[in-house]
């Protein structure tokens, strides 16, 4: 490998040719601040915060260099902390602040905002340059994402992730000069755009220009209402991420503390384990796959647990909606189980049950509003979907010391689940859980439970398994750009498989649009997706039951209510249908 030698702050550094100054500095443990740079996603040298001074062959270079894009060259001497550098960075930050609606006290990103952090580090005066009054309407019409362009610093990270990673590109730069802004075509609301709601833009935003549409107040109201029975359930990935909101290390499993904290949000709050409906999804989906294979149904079958992916198919590949499994997502199934089975068993009026799902995702906020998801025509099965971030805020507001809590179990009867349910939160997990159950169905003596071939981190995995004489080929991807590649391969005939698992967010739900937002220094240097996934796979490894069909809760709900997988009752409560939306704006 060809390398280059340079000096950064007088320290000799040797790095591979092709590295930028920023990458070289990080090798040497020298921090250069960035705002628009996002590793592997956005590298455009736009924000001018990463400026450094340099000499080439002993002669000072004429102007400062943008470290994120300037290549590390042989003989270059870089200086990251000089009066000129500090002055330039401070000037840039103060100009950004002049055009930024500084409602920092009430901002959802306060204390985690990258601009706020740098402004403090560089001693900026936020009023050094006269500010323009806020001039853009806040777009809060979609059920998932709120955009406030008065806070946008035009780093283009959201645009880059939407276009390059998700290949959806519903947002872009609009206009020019002082009127430049980020938004959907014809300045339409996200609600009218063919946006899939994945929320990757939200977790990419360094400031508070993007946030989830908050539903916390609705939940507080329900908790305070004596006529409502409030039931929470938490998605598989939340246990691996919510600790980050309370300063715990990335990848800490906090399931017990989380259950304890939710129970303390108010009197008589019930908390269930959504890993149970992940198991339920597997039972129904494995059955559906066998049905499709044996009766000549549409193949390959696409998983349907990820609402961002489902909406992507509806918008961009509507001809493939018959490939989507008719199974509701675990979130949808749990709502139906609670307002159907649980209400009946406990003599409760379904309209008095207030169902709150805690999910890692903004797209699931859209999913709960889908009329197709209703088991009965009069009410939604799930009342509110809360992101991990919203739940963390509620716990803080309730004055609960999360890190000090003793572990507690979920409430019965939906407390027990399997490792198969838990790994739903990571890319490949749904397929692995399905394989465990499908292989057992086809061959009772099949012992393998670890299907490591379908786990990350390669973006697209295709594996063929042989079970009881049957060959099953499966494909897995996360990130919608990779999903698009798989669909195109299926269209061209290059890929012939029986089942495809897609999660819209890179790495799966552990990196969902509703998860705690890490700072740039973590996003750009730490493999946080791997750490979060590991928490789920460790949980699986130590689980009492590994495969969904072994769960005693699953046995209970089928014996009590659903009968068998794919029964008429299962179809009423656990299955759904889709809408061919097309990619035009409303």
């Amino acid at each position, binding site marked *: 490998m060809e390398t280059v030698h340079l000096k950064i702050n007088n320290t000799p550094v040797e790095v591979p040719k092709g590295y930028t100054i920023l990458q070289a500095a990080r090798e040497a443990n020298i921090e250069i601040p960035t705002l628009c740079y996002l590793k592997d996603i956005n590298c455009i040298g736009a924000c001018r915060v990463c400026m450094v001074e340099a000499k080439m062959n002993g002669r000072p270079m004429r102007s400062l260099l943008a470290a994120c894009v300037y290549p590390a060259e042989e003989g270059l001497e870089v200086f990251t902390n000089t009066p000129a550098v500090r002055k330039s960075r401070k000037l840039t930050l103060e100009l950004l602040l002049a055009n930024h609606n500084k409602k920092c006290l009430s901002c959802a990103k306060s204390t985690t905002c990258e601009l706020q952090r740098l402004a403090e580090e560089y001693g900026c005066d936020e009023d050094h340059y006269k500010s323009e009054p806020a001039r853009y309407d806040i777009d809060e019409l979609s059920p998932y994402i709120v955009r406030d362009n008065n806070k946008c610093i035009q780093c283009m990270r959201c645009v880059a992730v939407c276009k390059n990673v998700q290949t959806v590109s519903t947002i*872009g730069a609009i*206009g*020019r000069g002082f009127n430049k802004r980020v938004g959907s075509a*014809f300045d339409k609301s996200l609600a009218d755009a063919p946006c899939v709601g994945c929320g990757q833009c939200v977790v990419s935003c360094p400031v508070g220009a993007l946030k989830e549409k908050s539903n916390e107040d609705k939940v507080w109201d329900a908790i305070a209402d004596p006529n409502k029975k409030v039931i929470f359930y938490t998605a598989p990935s939340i246990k691996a991420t919510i600790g980050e909101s309370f300063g715990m290390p990335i990848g800490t499993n906090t399931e017990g503390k989380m259950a304890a904290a939710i129970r303390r949000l108010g009197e008589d709050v019930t908390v269930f384990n959504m890993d149970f409906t992940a198991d339920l999804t597997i039972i129904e989906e494995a059955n559906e796959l066998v049905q499709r294979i044996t009766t000549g149904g549409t193949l390959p079958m696409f998983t349907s647990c990820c609402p961002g992916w489902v909406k992507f198919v509806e918008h961009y590949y509507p001809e493939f909606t018959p490939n989507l499994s008719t199974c509701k997502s675990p979130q949808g199934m749990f709502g139906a189980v609670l307002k159907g089975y649980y209400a009946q068993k406990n003599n409760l009026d379904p309209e008095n049950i207030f169902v709150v799902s805690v999910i890692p995702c903004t797209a699931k906020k859209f999913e709960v509003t889908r009329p197709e998801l209703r088991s009965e025509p009069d009410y939604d099965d799930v009342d509110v979907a809360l992101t991990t971030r919203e739940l963390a805020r509620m716990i803080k507001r309730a004055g609960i010391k999360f890190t000090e809590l003793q572990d507690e179990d979920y409430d019965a009867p939906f407390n027990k689940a399997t490792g198969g349910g838990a790994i739903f939160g990571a890319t490949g997990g749904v397929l692995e859980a399905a394989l465990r159950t499908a292989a057992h169905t086809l061959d009772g003596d099949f012992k393998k439970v670890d299907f490591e071939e379908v786990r990350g981190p390669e973006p697209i995995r295709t594996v063929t398994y042989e079970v009881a004489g049957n060959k099953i080929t499966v494909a897995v991807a996360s990130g919608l750009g990779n999903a698009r590649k798989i669909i195109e391969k299926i269209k061209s005939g290059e890929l012939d498989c029986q089942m495809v698992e897609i999660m819209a967010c890179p790495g799966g739900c552990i990196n969902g649009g509703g998860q705690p937002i890490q700072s740039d220094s973590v996003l750009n240097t730490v493999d946080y997706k791997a750490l979060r996934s590991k928490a789920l796979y460790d949980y699986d490894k130590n689980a009492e039951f590994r495969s969904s069909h072994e769960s005693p809760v699953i046995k209970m709900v089928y014996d009590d209510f659903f009968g068998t997988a794919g029964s008429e009752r299962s179809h009423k409560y656990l299955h759904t249908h889709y809408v061919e939306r097309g990619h035009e704006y409303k």
Partner: protein
Amino acid sequence: MAEKNIQPFHETEEQKQQLIEVIDRNKTQPGALLPILHEAQEIYGYLPIEVQQRVADGLGISLSEVYGVATFYSRFSLTPKGKHRVSVCLGTACYVKGADKVLAEVEKKLGIKSGECTDDGLFSIDSCRCVGACGLAPVMMIGEEVYGKLTPAMVDKILDKYIKEEGASK
């Protein structure tokens, strides 16, 4: 920023075929979007959402990318232009000679703002920067006709001529 002057989109079959031909002719070359938008504006007079969506689909890119380019260059218009295009020069010479007051008078007379088109589709107003007739400042153009040494008081009479013409031809 809200959309101005939303009028229903109409196109002739001929316009549609022309646009399809333009897209087909350009789409394989790199940077095809800009020349396609130029020709599309020639065909339709402006770039409504229907036209931009067809360009996006033809090139396999998103509508927001097309819109980004269409709003970056002031040469492109998102609103229809009138049969008579009134263009008031706001270049330096005209401006110091009071072109802003002339523009205000034109806007008042026609009841629309710069960048807009009247509901009957007869007049649209734009501002421009220097038509090369600084000696006649302040200047405005209506179609290809140049009117110089203007005062706000003259605007009424000039526009009336066009309005009368239109009335007679109806």
